[in-house]
């Protein structure tokens, strides 16, 4: 799978496994260097965990997850990337799958555009720690 275009604030990343039952509160974006990793999500961790992750970031990023462990990264890696961004959350999607993300409730992709909530997936890796 390849990235088709730069980020369009009105076209969120699609949910693994189909449409969500309720409209997501947050648009989900993926860093271009990890688009390939995102494409492997279902095959790597399974559809159940992929859905669980999507529901977490689309509806309650930053909140405790009922199943997965989340940790706020420390030091510079954990700091917000700018005004409005959260700290970096480290989501353990499986024993060997980890995803780092930040969220922003009032993100503007361009100057003058309407603010909207987004989750930015920064990194994905499938190597066990």
């Amino acid at each position, binding site marked *: 799978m390849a990235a088709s275009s730069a980020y369009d604030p009105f076209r969120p990343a699609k949910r*693994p496994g189909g449409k969500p039952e309720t409209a997501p509160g947050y648009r989900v974006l993926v860093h271009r260097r990890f688009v390939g990793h995102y494409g492997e999500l279902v095959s790597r961790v399974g559809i159940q965990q992929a859905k669980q992750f999507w529901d977490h970031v689309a509806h309650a990023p930053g909140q405790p997850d009922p199943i997965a462990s989340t940790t706020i990264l420390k030091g510079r*890696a954990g700091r917000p990337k700018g005004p409005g961004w959260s700290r970096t959350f480290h989501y353990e999607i499986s024993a060997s799958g980890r995803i780092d993300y930040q969220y922003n409730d009032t993100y503007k992709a361009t100057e003058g555009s309407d603010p909207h909530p987004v989750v930015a997936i920064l990194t994905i890796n499938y190597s066990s720690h």
Partner: protein
Amino acid sequence: MTDTIFQSSDLAGGKRTEFLDAARSGLARLRDKDGTSLVMLPESRLRLLQTLATWWEAYSRLDALLRRSLAPTANELGELAWLRPFDRADLEEFLSDLHDALVAASADEDEAALADTLRAWRITARQLEDPLRRSVLLGQHVPSDYVEVDEPSGGE
């Protein structure tokens, strides 16, 4: 520290239960036949004390290393070599976090705060070990770096 000092003969007598109760509640002192002072305490408390001693020593060592102008090498970090992905500012933040966690664990008589802090720093270190992850985690947010993706294959 309790004022009651049991005798070794108490372990076979009527005070055996009293001795064990004192040990369960924190600490029991016993004078051995040769005069040696012995204590019995819950293993969990001993583990906590050992953990705190280990990490206070590590704290002191890192504190001394960071007082120099040179960045500590992996060899100098020793058991803390897992901290090597961090720059000096992060190491100083780790040192401050470690201090706070040690004080909290000592006050709580529970190493949970220390374990949580160390776990978060270890996870961060592992994320920064990879050059690609490091560059994204430490880089600025650039909107054009974020792209639309298709639905992952292998779904329902």
